[in-house]
């Protein structure tokens, strides 16, 4: 449960906001409940004290005559009347010596219960000293309150005139004649407190639920723009699609949304510009490659038709000169023969060059055969062991695409020659699941692919770039795998165009 909470907390901003509000509301609820209960407790407590003080005041007043006259009958009514009051468990009256005059307990109270003082109040007790001070007092026990009050009487008339007329005498003095005590049950207070506590909990719980709901809604409202923004950013990042974020507020989030919208528009514009530029570049690249191909073809033609023929003529001439030489001109003859060999070599190289420039075998024998020939000739020329597994893919691509495929393999093989220092290589061409896969692999020294591909274009070298460009022109992808000392594998995957 904790893990789920932590996970949500880490991953969801709305959950963070909600949690913050929830904690706040929880603390406020707690504080409110505590304050409420404390306030109510204080109020109940004070009410109980006030009630007790009123009751003991009433008892002290109503028992004056009984205490004054020492007549227990006159105390019975006030004392038993006091027991009728809610919560009063016991009531008793004492004379000034502290001797009990009357003590009554509520019928349901056990007589052994220590309520008030049975018998005589100890003259040295704190109670007696407190009461002798002439003021009421109360004591709190675990299960009850005991309220005590002195019982006072007013002094008599000092003069005969005073018994006849009002206003004659001065304010009469008060004399202590006894003490009154009542025991007030605390259980009702405790009961009230329990009720209060549960009510407080309930109120707090309701408040909490409402608060959580409000926090949830608030969190949603606050984080909605963030999520909208996140969604738009994600869409922009993943799919490149720009979804405008609606600006609903004027605060920081609103500003952020606006900034995002502006940024996205700017990005979109730049992307368009980039795409245009890329398109131009590709078009340029295509034209370059095309121009290169045409130039190669022209050169091949010129080499083959022009220079080749001339060299063939030259070879013929030299040979015929050799035939004209005398036997004793063996040195010259040898020179001629050597010259013929040299010319033949040149012609062979020229032919090969011409072929490399514009492989006629591609037009004459088809792509698959051209690739085989290419692979074989490469192996022979560079003394590297070859392994070729080439399926028939002649009629799958256009002429232009075939040239690109041919050039791709050519370039891959050139890279092996230039960089790999390999002893073996293989060329695999297969037609699978609507794609043609060409794999050129070697056991050469390999290289750090991420390092090389991460280099700036001017440091990267044209080979890999050309491979990537050819693949792109074919509408395919190229994957280069290589590890130092483990060789290199170049995989070209090209979807077969629908006929």
């Amino acid at each position: 449960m904790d893990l789920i909470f932590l996970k949500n907390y880490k991953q969801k901003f709305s959950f963070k906001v909600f949690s913050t509000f929830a904690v706040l509301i929880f603390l406020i609820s707690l504080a409110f409940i505590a304050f409420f209960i404390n306030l109510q407790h204080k109020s109940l407590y004070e009410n109980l004290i006030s009630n007790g003080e009123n009751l003991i005041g009433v008892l002290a007043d109503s028992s004056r005559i009984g205490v004054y006259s020492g007549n227990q009958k006159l105390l019975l009514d006030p004392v038993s009347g006091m027991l009728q009051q809610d919560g009063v468990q016991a009531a008793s009256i004492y004379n000034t010596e502290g001797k009990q005059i009357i003590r009554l307990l509520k019928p349901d109270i056990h007589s052994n219960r220590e309520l008030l003082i049975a018998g005589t109040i100890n003259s040295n007790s704190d109670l007696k000293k407190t009461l002798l001070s002439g003021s009421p007092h109360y004591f709190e026990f675990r299960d009850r309150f005991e309220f005590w009050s002195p019982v006072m009487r007013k002094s008599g008339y000092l003069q005969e005139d005073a018994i006849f007329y009002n206003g004659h005498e001065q304010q009469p003095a008060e004399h202590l004649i006894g003490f009154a005590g009542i025991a007030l049950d605390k259980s009702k207070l405790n009961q009230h407190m329990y009720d209060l506590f549960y009510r407080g909990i309930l109120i707090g719980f309701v408040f909490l639920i409402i608060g959580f709901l409000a926090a949830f809604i608030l969190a949603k409202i606050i984080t909605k723009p963030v999520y909208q923004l996140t969604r738009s950013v994600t869409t922009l990042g993943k799919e490149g699609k720009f979804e405008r974020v609606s600006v609903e507020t004027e605060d920081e989030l609103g500003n952020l949304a606006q900034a995002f919208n502006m940024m996205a528009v700017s990005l979109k514009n730049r992307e368009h510009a980039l795409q245009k530029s890329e398109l131009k570049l590709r078009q340029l690249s295509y034209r370059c490659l095309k121009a290169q191909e045409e130039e190669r073809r022209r050169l091949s033609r010129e080499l083959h038709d022009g220079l080749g023929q001339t060299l063939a003529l030259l070879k013929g001439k030299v040979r015929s000169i050799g035939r004209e030489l005398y036997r004793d001109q063996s040195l010259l003859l040898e020179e001629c023969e050597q010259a013929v060999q040299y010319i033949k070599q040149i012609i062979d190289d020229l032919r090969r060059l011409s072929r490399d420039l514009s492989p006629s075998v591609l037009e004459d024998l088809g792509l698959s055969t051209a690739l085989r020939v290419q692979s074989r000739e490469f192996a022979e020329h560079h003394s590297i062991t070859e392994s070729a597994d080439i399926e028939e893919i002649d009629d799958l691509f256009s002429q232009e695409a075939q040239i690109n495929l041919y050039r791709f393999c050519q370039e891959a093989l050139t890279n092996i020659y230039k960089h790999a220092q390999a002893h073996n290589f293989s060329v695999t061409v297969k037609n699978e699941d609507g794609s043609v896969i060409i794999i050129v692999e070697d056991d050469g020294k390999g290289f750090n692919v991420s390092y090389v591909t991460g280099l700036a274009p001017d440091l990267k070298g044209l080979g890999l770039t050309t491979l990537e460009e050819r693949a792109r022109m074919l509408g395919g992808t190229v994957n280069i795998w290589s590890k130092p000392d483990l060789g290199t594998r170049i995989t070209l995957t090209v979807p077969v165009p629908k006929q």
Partner: protein
Amino acid sequence: MFKKFFIICNFFIFCNGIVQAGQEIVAVQSSNLKPFEQALDGFKNVCKANIKQLVLSEMKGADIVEKIQDIDPDMVLAIGNEALRKVRKIHDIPIIYFMVLNPQSILSEEQNITGISLNIPPRKQLSTFTSALPELKRIGIIFDPSISGALIEEVQSAAAESGKILVAQKVHSSREVPSALLDMAGKIDVLWMLPDLTVITRMNVEFLLLFCLENKLPVIAFSEKYVALGALLSVGIDAFDIGRQAGEMAQQILSENDLTYARHDGPRKIALRFNPQIARKTIVSINTQIVRNLGIRVDDEIMKDARKINF
């Protein structure tokens, strides 16, 4: 003849007036209570002498006798018990007291002192309230023999004469009063409060009146003060009329018709031939709310003339 007689009478009245106007009287008052003032007003209404008022409650610590002797008045009035106590030491000036309760407890046969007692004879009180409440038979009284013993004897004989039953409870201290009343509950039809300082304390009065209210027992008091507190009726005095009565007494004395002088050893002593009196006029005060609460029938004539008091 008649004309001559008329002129002579007027002459004496005029001379009397001249005599009074030139005479000085010091009125010593216990306190500024309204009844005392009313009584003095009644006195002044009759006697036109110069009256100098001295209020004891405002003269703390002063020697009143010395002050009076300095003034050397023709007469001294003592209004209230305390005033009488102070002035009774004076023997050479006629003294008239009024508004004094139980003057016999203060005086000891001083010859120069006379006056009007506040006490209404029990017989008169009894006849008044038995007239007012003819249906009530048993009368309860609580008293301290040391204070009201003599009075009770009179009451008993008056009750017997009027065919009422007197239920009297003796008490020797204030604290015994509540118990005494409890004992009388159910045995009496009415409680008669006497002006007994042992019985009449603040605590006891409160208890008496409350108890009687709760037990629907009418209370007869001696002062309107208690009628206002819940007693049924009181038979009291008319302070102004007492003052007038004292004034008439003073007039007569000041005309020296009732003075004898004796000089034996020491200062001249005065003896008055005017005997002490009782108040000639009584006022019945009735608490009409108590009448209604207790459902008691009061005599119409008495009711008509009585002062009506409510809570």
